[in-house]
Structure formats: C-alpha cells, structure tokens
C-alpha cells in the first residue's frame, strides 16, 4: 500500500495537474498569457472555506459553488484583460493576482493574515473520507477536467480559440466574436482553478493568502510551459515532474530553488516548446521513429 506520505504528495501533484490543465485552456489553447492563475485558485479556496466554516455548507456544494464563483470572477476580470494585449495582458493578470492576494490579506472578512482554519476534509455517507479516498476524488476531478478538455478541443470553441491564438484580427474577420471566446476561456479556466482551490483548502484544512500569491501562479505556469503548452499531455506531465521535483531534490534541499530556477532557464533556452511540445526533441524523435517504422509495415 502507498504510505500516507506518498499519498499526500500525490494529492498535491493531482491538484497541480488540475491547475495546469485549467491554465492551459487560457494560455495554451486561447493564447492569452495569464500570470495570475493562483488568484482564481485562491478565490475558489476562500469561497469553499467560507461556505464551509461560516455558512455550514458541506464540502460537495461548497466545492461546486467554488468553481462557479471563480469562473464568474474570471469572466468579470477578463473584461479589463480584453482591453490589453500580450505584454500588457501579462502584467495586468499579474496585477490582478497581487490585488486579489492583498484583498485576502487585508480584509478581516477573509481572515486577513491569519487565513482561515478549521476546514475539514470532505465527508461521504456521514464519515470523513480517508487520504486515499481524497486521492481518488482528485483523480476523479482530473478525469472530468480531461473530458471537458477533449470535448472543447474537438468543438468549434477549440477551433475559435486556436484561431484567436494564432491571429486575433484574422479570427475576427472569420466570424469569430473574439471578445466572447476570450471571456469563455477565462471563465472555464478560472472555474477549473476554483475547483482545484476548493480541493486544496479541504486538503490542507487551513489556507493563507500567501498560498495564492504570484509565486504560485508562476509555479503553475512553469508546469504548463515545462511540459509543453497547448497540448493535453504537456501540462499533465509538467505538473507531475515539477510537482515531484521537491521530493526528489530533498538531498539537495539547500539548492532546490536554485536548481528549479536554472532548470526553467535552461529548458526555455534549449527546449522552448517544453519537453513534450510539438517541436520538442522527444516528440520529434518519436515521430521520426514512427515514420521509420511505417514503411516496414507495408
């Protein structure tokens, strides 16, 4: 059996997978750089925590409401983001993250610097679910997110996002309401982050503003880019590898963050498409191998 420690690590990684997949919708599919994804994770976490500790909601409705609230706030905050592009957008989303974190930190309603404690893990049939049970829940949510992801990729929505990512002005002249599809990307992506935030809150049982700061956004974005932005496999693999990195680099504790920084830098320098992106060494090698193998079949 998996030890409690391993389960804890796997749950954390699983939550990061949800975060990376949801950010990938905004930044990978629709091409809108977001440096503030953790803000929406925080909005989901706080919504869920407040509903649970103050309004006596049980986990399940709180979890769903967290997704809805984060999605709704994402839709509203997408509006300032629509006025700006590229680098201005990146900095605006970063600003949103700082402002949201500051709000958690300074408004007493949100527990200010103390955060919110006493958030229990979910219960099922009257008893609290165990850690392996929580892991199954996280895996279930990941499966649901992947299902939505695949369905979007096959739909006209996915196509409209791809067009906006490649050339916004041309997409407009192809009949795509650019504003609407961008808002949709921010809404769905933020809702996913909200769900992840709710899981995070009920897993840690207490939350603090710093959990949802800009640094966290960078961690999530790094995972997406590390694995291969705009693909399904990329963010999943990126979240697993970078999520597990702290565990594997335990012997080099002192140099862990340094290594992380250098890893990001070297990857961008030599594999800018991520380890599993379309133009990455691994994927190109794989395609080359398959092409070599193909004539032998005939």
């Amino acid at each position, binding site marked *: 059996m998996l030890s409690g420690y391993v389960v804890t690590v796997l749950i954390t990684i699983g939550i990061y997978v949800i975060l990376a997949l949801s950010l990938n919708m905004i930044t990978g599919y629709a091409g809108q750089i977001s440096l503030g994804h953790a803000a929406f994770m925080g909005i989901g976490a706080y919504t869920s925590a407040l509903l649970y500790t103050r309004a006596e909601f049980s986990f399940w409705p709180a979890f769903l409401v967290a997704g809805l609230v984060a999605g709704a706030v994402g839709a509203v905050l997408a509006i300032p983001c629509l006025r700006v592009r590229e680098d201005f957008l990146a900095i605006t989303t970063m600003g949103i993250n700082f402002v949201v974190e500051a709000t958690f930190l300074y408004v007493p309603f949100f527990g200010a610097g103390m955060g919110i404690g006493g958030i229990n893990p979910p219960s099922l049939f009257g008893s609290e679910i165990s850690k392996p049970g929580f892991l199954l829940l996280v895996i279930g949510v990941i499966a649901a997110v992947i299902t939505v992801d695949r369905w979007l990729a096959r739909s006209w*929505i996915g196509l409209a996002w*791809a067009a906006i990512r490649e050339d916004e002005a*041309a997409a407009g002249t192809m009949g*795509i309401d650019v504003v609407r599809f961008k808002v949709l990307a921010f809404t769905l992506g933020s809702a996913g982050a909200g769900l992840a935030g709710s899981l995070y809150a009920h897993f840690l049982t207490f939350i603090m503003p710093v959990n949802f700061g800009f640094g966290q956004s960078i961690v999530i974005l790094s995972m997406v880019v590390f694995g291969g932005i705009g693909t399904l496999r990329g963010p999943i693999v990126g979240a697993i590898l970078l999520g597990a990195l702290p565990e594997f680099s335990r012997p080099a504790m002192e140099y862990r963050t340094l290594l992380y920084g250098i890893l990001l830098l070297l990857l961008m320098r030599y594999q800018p498409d991520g380890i599993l992106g379309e133009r990455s060494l691994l994927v190109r090698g794989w395609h080359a191998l398959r092409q070599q193998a193909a004539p032998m079949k005939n």
Partner: protein
Amino acid sequence: MALLEIEHLTKEFDGVTALQDVSLEVREGEILGVIGPNGAGKTTLFNCITGIFTPDRGTIRYRGEPIQRRRPHEIARRGIARTFQIVRPFPTLSLTDNVLVAYGHRYYPRLRASATASRTQASLQACRGLLDRVGMPAGHQRAAGALPLGLKKRLEIARALALNPSLLLLDEPSGGLRHEESQELLELIRRLNQEGITIVLIEHNMPIVMGVCRRLVVLDHGIQIAEGDPAAIQRKES
C-alpha cells in the same frame, strides 16, 4: 442596386489622414478594382469595411444597412469576406482547419452550437470541397505556415469562401506571385465572380486589373481621384 455604399468615409491616424471623404459604391455582381500608389489608403479602406478600424466620419452601408460601427465578426457573418495583403493564414493549423475556422461562422453565434463537434464528416467534406475549388493540391493536413506564398494566397481565398460571402475583398492577390501563378489566380477570380460573388480587388498588377475589372476607383493619399471604366482611366493617367 448597390451592394455596398460608402459615403464621405474619413479615417485618420495620429493626425495623418489615411482616407479623406471617400465615397463609392460596389454594385451587385461586379468586379471593382481599387488602384493607387503605396500608402494611398487602399488597405485602410478594406480595414474600415471589415470593421478592423472604425471610421472617424462617414457611413458604410451593406445592403442598405449601416455597418461602420459593427465589429469584424458581425460584418463577416453578414457575408463580407476578405484576404490580407500580407497573407495571414493561421500558421500552425492544418489547411483543413484553416478553412474550418471560417466554416464555423454558422456555429459561433450560439454557445450551444459552438460546443458541438467541429470535425464532422459534413464539415470536413465542405472544407475539402472549398480547397479543391481554389485548386489546392493534395496534402490538406499540412501546417499552413509551411506553404509557399502562392498556395497561402489560395488558402486565404478558400477560407474567405467558407464564409459563403456575397462580397469578397481581395487585397493584392497577385502580389509576390510569378506570372503563371497570377494568371491562374485571375482565372479563379473570374470564375468566382461568374458564380455570383461580387468582388473588390486591390491590385498593383495592371494587366490583371485591366483583365478582370469593368470599373475602377483610383485612390491617392487617401483621396479618391478618379472613378470609371478602366480604358478611360488609363487614358487619363497617361
């Protein structure tokens, strides 16, 4: 009856006038040529018609309806399609997907419809048909960014046709092409026109202009300096 009526159209950028008091009409079924030197405001005219720019003054009416304040997608859905002077296919998408993006215009307006599967047999077949119609050779799964210029231009026309347009705006379709390629394109333009699509053509290549346009508008420094049949304008120019 005029399909498109433009009256007193004016557009300035930071005090520089790109179009000044331009009035013209596009008649149903014709091929109208727009000519003039670089910087004359030809592409700005297209950008105003397709909603990429909002004009400072003046009106643009399409089938009698003012569209100068409409956004690009609303104008596209009304049946005005265009190509770009500097070709802009969606580079990492396949040729089929490039056309499919425009074919989707009938699904985008409603969220429900846009959440349905895009690559159905019917829609893929329609897109392949459009690629054939512009004479695109096989290999529709290639990424559009890797195509040679001539084929990119064809792809842009196929993409525009997927909007099922009544009015097609072509921005220098022969620019950068070899002679034979231009001739083939000329044939394509004629054929599309015979199929009932009204065309406005920005073009530098005078033989092409003289070959297909029955009416011309001449712009210079944002001002419309002449309008009429090609022969008369050529006489006046020389």
